[in-house]
């Protein structure tokens, strides 16, 4: 399984765009990249998933370069309620085993 590396923490201010990058140098051909959000004392919540290039949904965008060795989660105009831990996961769903990394603790300030 591909190991992921993320910054331990990031600070931002309300209204700013936040980009969190995840490094996954040994990603395999069949691996997908998925991001989750976790608030304190709650279960993780799916944000977005992608394989290559760019994926966008109503809450975030995911940018994946051609070599797929990294990915960037982009959160537009964050608010205080976006303060959470963000996890990047890399894996093949047929193997049914998904490991969370250490995550990035995002702190949004007023």
């Amino acid at each position, binding site marked *: 399984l591909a190991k992921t590396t993320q910054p331990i923490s990031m600070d931002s201010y309300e209204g700013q765009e936040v980009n969190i990058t995840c490094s996954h140098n040994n990603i395999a051909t069949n691996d997908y990249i998925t991001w989750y959000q976790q608030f304190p004392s709650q*279960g993780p919540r799916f944000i977005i998933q992608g394989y290559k290039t760019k994926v966008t949904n109503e809450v975030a965008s995911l940018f994946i370069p051609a070599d797929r060795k990294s990915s960037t989660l982009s959160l537009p105009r964050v608010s205080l309620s976006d303060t959470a831990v963000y996890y990047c996961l890399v894996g093949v*769903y047929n193997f049914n085993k998904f490991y969370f990394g*250490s995550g990035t603790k995002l702190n949004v300030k007023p």
Partner: protein
Amino acid sequence: EPEVTQTPSHQVTQMGQEVILRCVPISNHLYFYWYRQILGQKVEFLVSFYNNEISEKSEIFDDQFSVERPDGSNFTLKIRSTKLEDSAMYFCASRAGQANTGELFFGEGSRLTVL
């Protein structure tokens, strides 16, 4: 919106006691998971379950742990003889299982405190 439900929300037990944590996955989902999170640490994979048997398990999931789906709706995690280090939040998750759909739906967790 359908959700994964877990009971109990909090359980306190004495070391050496057996504990059963219960989960009701989303009804049409095919894959089920248990994760745990020790306070302040990352979410750790324990086990996945598909077609009434364990699909994958981590090195954490030793002989003290077992899972079953006794009645087609509940999905349980049993810890036979709890240790202090089993104190953690335990999360159940389920997944629909369609090709390339990787969304795991997590419950709110069961907090286990072992004294």
